[in-house]
């Protein structure tokens, strides 16, 4: 396990805080990934056929790591999609997400327990890719040659919860919009859909998603934006920001609504634009005057949204978690959208 040498706790020695009191989600978690049900018995690499691979159309930026994802539902159980944007996952649901840089580095795990609660863990792979063990709850920083900057941060459990508890459902990548077969062709870092991947139609056909409004199969969810670029930009913000910045979670008081729903129609984009364009920014960049705005239509350089996305100073950067490297392609999309496609709030209101 020499590859697990720990680097400095973080840039400031602060980011990887100990897990929060009263949230002992590690209790009774399996010590090894192979005991979570991901692999066939006796293997640490062959995935059980009942664990279904999937690929969200708007992936989260994770410093260029490659990802594989699987969903497991207990026999006879199904996701209740009565509320299209807050799917109810049955007890026993399990999800895995493997992150890699030329080899597997960590596999994150979410499980819904019998009492309806969720628990979260991450497992660290050895250099040979033959076994993965439970990571410490406070997270670790790895030196990893193939990761950008030679450094790879395993998040703490508190940081896992910061994102996953900020949304309506802690499962962020399995939703009607993310698994829509009407995939966005312009999204940065889009992952090709493999033949074995399940999407919305596949889940319904297997009776693993029930009570989905039938219209949603006839016209699969799509962000009703004003242009293809706006659609991709809003999808990117949905996947990378919307789990915290939405109008129903703990950060609702910030009045920044970047989550897009499967049934929002034009309301979702309109709501996002209203909360961005011309809105005063609480965060004021160094040297900026008191009038700093989240987005100034036509001016990406004056838009705090783009400024913070382009920073990896831990005190400035957005997202604040889970990334050490700027997503150049993602920022370029957002800046192009601000510069070329956005109208002012006044024009939008007319």
């Amino acid at each position, binding site marked *: 396990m020499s590859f697990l040498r720990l680097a400095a706790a973080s840039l400031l020695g602060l980011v990887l805080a100990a897990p*929060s*009191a*009263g949230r002992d989600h590690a209790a009774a978690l399996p010590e090894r990934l192979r005991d979570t049900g991901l692999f066939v018995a006796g293997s640490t690499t062959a995935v059980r056929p009942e664990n279904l691979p999937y690929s969200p159309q708007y992936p989260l930026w994770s410093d260029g790591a490659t990802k594989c994802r699987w969903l497991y539902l207990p026999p006879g159980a199904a996701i209740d999609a009565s509320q299209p944007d807050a799917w109810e996952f049955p007890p026993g649901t399990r999800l895995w997400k493997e992150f890699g840089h030329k080899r597997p580095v960590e596999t994150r795990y979410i499980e819904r327990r019998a009492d309806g609660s969720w628990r979260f863990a991450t497992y660290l792979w050895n250099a040979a890719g033959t076994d993965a063990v439970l990571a410490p709850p406070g997270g670790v920083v790895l030196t990893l040659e193939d990761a950008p900057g030679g450094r790879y941060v395993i998040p703490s459990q508190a940081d896992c919860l910061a994102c996953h508890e900020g949304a309506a459902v802690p499962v962020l990548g399995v939703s009607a919009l993310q698994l829509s077969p009407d995939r966005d062709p312009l999204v940065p870092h889009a992952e090709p859909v493999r033949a074995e991947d399940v999407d919305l139609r596949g889940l319904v056909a297997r009776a693993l998603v029930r009570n989905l409004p039938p219209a949603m199969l006839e016209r699969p969810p799509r962000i009703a934006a004003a242009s293809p670029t706006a659609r991709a930009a809003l999808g990117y913000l949905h996947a990378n920001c919307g789990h915290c910045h939405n109008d129903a979670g*703990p950060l609702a*008081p910030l*009045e920044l609504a970047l989550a897009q729903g499967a049934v929002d129609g034009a309301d979702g984009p309109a709501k996002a634009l209203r909360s961005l364009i011309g809105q005063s920014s609480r965060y*004021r960049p160094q040297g900026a005057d008191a009038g700093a705005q989240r987005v100034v239509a036509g001016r990406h350089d004056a838009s705090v949204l783009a400024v913070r996305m382009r920073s990896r100073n831990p*005190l400035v950067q957005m997202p604040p978690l889970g990334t050490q490297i700027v997503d150049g392609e993602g920022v370029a999309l957002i800046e192009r959208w601000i510069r070329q496609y956005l109208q002012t709030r006044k024009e939008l209101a007319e």
Partner: protein
Amino acid sequence: MTRSFFAKTSRAVSLVAVSLLALTAAPRPAAAADDAAKRATAAAEKLARGKYLVTVAGCNDCHTPFKDGPNGPEPDMSRMLSGHPQDMVVPPAPKPQGPWIASVAATNTAWSGPWGVSFTANLTPDRETGLGKWNLRTFIDTIRTGRRMGRGRPILPPMPYPMYKHFTDADLEAIFTYLQSIPPLKNKVPEPLPPAAPSAQGG
């Protein structure tokens, strides 16, 4: 006769039942007043507990700017818990020497150290510059995680959240309740400054 007896009994039972229903459905005014009084007492106790905790946990030491008083520096309670004054000009801190690694401004609201320069937050319920838009969950999440609103940037030294995160939920609720009750003061605290870049001559 028998029929009349049953009719009377039935009527009497109905009356008793209706009376009982009325008694259970509509609390007596005195009982309602008791409940209201208990709620008011509990609310006052929570507020007092919050004020006590804010006092003994030393929140004013850093979040209320110090001023020169007749007996030396003292917290300026006219700016109670409003954080680092927005208009205060803060030149670069002295360079650390030997074992001295941190500097603090005379107001006790600006701190310079290896983490950069931190400015204490406005804890008053002003909606634009303080905690006026926060709710109990964002407050508890902040103290528990050491991240702004539980999800944002790291909170910097000298904020002792690693100790404060051990407050119970009830304590944190009392503290938040008290902080939401104090006078709102508009004061836009600046963002923290990053650590100075090492100098070219071997800093």
